[in-house]
């Protein structure tokens, strides 16, 4: 066989393997989704959205509201701080400082969620006396997902072609204008990826919230402190341990809702970005 023919054969082989890999991932995801939805089906009714968790099962209104609040506030914090940090690292930071910040951010990714949660418990819940609270919970999520937001933004901003930025400078644009109209839009898909990964991870975390948001069987009061908040992952984690089938169904229903939220957010955000920012890249 010639070298060329062998290379072609190898090429076909690896592409087939890559498709098999994609197939494997899709199959596993479907398995997980089916696993969750089949077990949650008995509890999936409209009343889930209007009643609070009580007794053996009940509804998920309090948990849904709490999750939405915690994740949105946490994401805003993480998004602003993360993208801001990435901008500084890429645009302004001297080499040594950029290295230091990126290093610490990577280290943060390795901190277990429980450590973040317990740290905030000691510092905020007990230390500052805030008690289980919305702010502490949102902060714990924000800190935990910060690395994903920052690194994605970082990588995306670094890859903005120099020519585009130099062209902007040559036209006399101020730095802020360059950033807003050149850097950020070009990097938006990457930043978006970071935010979406962060949403996914933030929605799915339990340990940090147990020690900061606590849990509440009632709708959130929106008080920033001294008021515990419910969230869907608590239901999954805790109601699975109950001896009642209705509790298990509720737990899986909560899990189904979480996955649906992530899916919907992804689809909406991706379509939005496609619509607004398509055509910026040379394909």
């Amino acid at each position, binding site marked *: 066989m010639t070298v060329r023919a062998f290379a072609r054969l190898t090429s076909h082989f690896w592409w087939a393997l*890559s498709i098999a890999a994609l197939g494997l*991932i899709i199959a596993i995801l479907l398995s997980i989704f089916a696993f*969750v939805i089949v077990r949650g089906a008995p509890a999936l009714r409209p009343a889930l959205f209007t009643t609070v968790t009580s007794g053996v099962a009940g509804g998920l209104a309090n948990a849904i509201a709490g999750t939405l609040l915690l994740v949105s506030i946490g994401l805003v914090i993480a998004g602003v701080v993360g993208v801001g940090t990435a901008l500084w690292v890429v645009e302004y930071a001297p080499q040594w*400082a950029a290295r230091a910040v990126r290093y610490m*951010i990577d280290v943060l990714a*390795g901190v*277990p969620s429980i450590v*973040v949660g317990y740290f905030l418990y000691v510092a905020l819940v007990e230390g500052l006396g805030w008690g289980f609270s919305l702010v502490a919970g949102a902060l714990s999520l924000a800190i935990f997902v910060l690395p994903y937001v920052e690194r994605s933004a970082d990588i995306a901003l670094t890859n903005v072609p120099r020519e585009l930025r130099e062209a902007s400078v040559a036209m006399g644009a101020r730095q802020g204008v360059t950033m807003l109209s050149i850097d950020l839009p070009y990097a938006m898909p990457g930043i978006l990826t970071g935010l979406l990964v962060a949403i996914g991870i933030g929605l799915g975390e339990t340990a940090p919230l147990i020690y900061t948001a606590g849990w509440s069987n009632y709708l959130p009061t929106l008080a920033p402190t001294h008021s515990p908040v419910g969230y869907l992952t608590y239901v999954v984690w805790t109601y699975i341990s109950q001896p009642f089938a209705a509790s298990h169904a509720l737990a899986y229903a909560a899990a189904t809702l979480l996955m649906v939220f992530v899916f919907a957010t992804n689809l909406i955000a991706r379509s939005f970005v496609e619509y607004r920012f398509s055509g910026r*890249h040379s394909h």
Partner: protein
Amino acid sequence: MAVRQGELRPAVMQRVRTQPLLRYATGAFALTSFGIIFLMLLFLLAYAFPAIRFNGTAFFTSPIWNIGNQYGSATVTRAGFTAQAGASFGSLVFVSGTLLSSFLAMIAAVPLSLLVALAIVYRVPASLKPLANAVVELMAGVPSVIYGLWGMIVLVPFIGNRLSPTGSGDGLLAATLILALMVVPIMVATTRDVVQAQQASIYEASMALGSTSWQAVTRAVLPSVRSGIAGSVLLAFGRALGETMAVLMVCGAAINTLPHGIFSPINTIAAVIVSQLESALTDASGMAQRSLGELALALFVITLIVNAVARIVLHGGDRSGAIG
């Protein structure tokens, strides 16, 4: 003078109309990011200090974890700090479990992620791409508790019935597979992004020179985005090191015993902190809690070392500074 990827050339830099407000605002954010991690590190150091003194070097060499007799009044004092009688805190089981499961998970996950990302960029038709992307990001959105439950109810029995000689599937293999699944979406998402953004001209140039499509990808495109991929690998590794809930439910929660095969029960630092924090709170002397803090500190140090080593290894080929 070498210029980082994307960095403006010095001649151009002089003409930039800088805005100090922006510099300070973004600088403040960067300081916040850096600061929060630093604060946590300091907190852990202060919190774990009594345990560090009490446990000494045995912490690193002993596999025994014993919070002591909570219901007796006898105490033991070492280096000026007191704990309940019988207390002895050794981290060997947890450190070895953490390192083994994370490293093995990455060995499985990195090739898999690359293959999946390449399949999405090059083989999935454009009309199906949003769906494929959504699937991958959906995987990142599966709550870690659900990975744990699925692992416990689907994966572990599978391992126990088909593969394991003891009949029990909880152990290193289960933990490794679950961790690999959890980090794949992170790497796929980033790899896909950087490849998608960079690849067109390089790919076409390579093909024009006569390479096969696979050669074009592996020998031309991937090397050009190596730093972005490496960045996501480090991030994923961090996630693997710190993952708690999912591992907790499938690892077998080994205590006082080191693993001797891939079917042996293991325990990781993050999992043991979650499962033992509760009991540690019953320790009147507080030493159990602080030893858990010392464990968290150990994980911090492991992460610091791994990231430093990775940077030294990768820095040779990193022209962009994106890894830092």
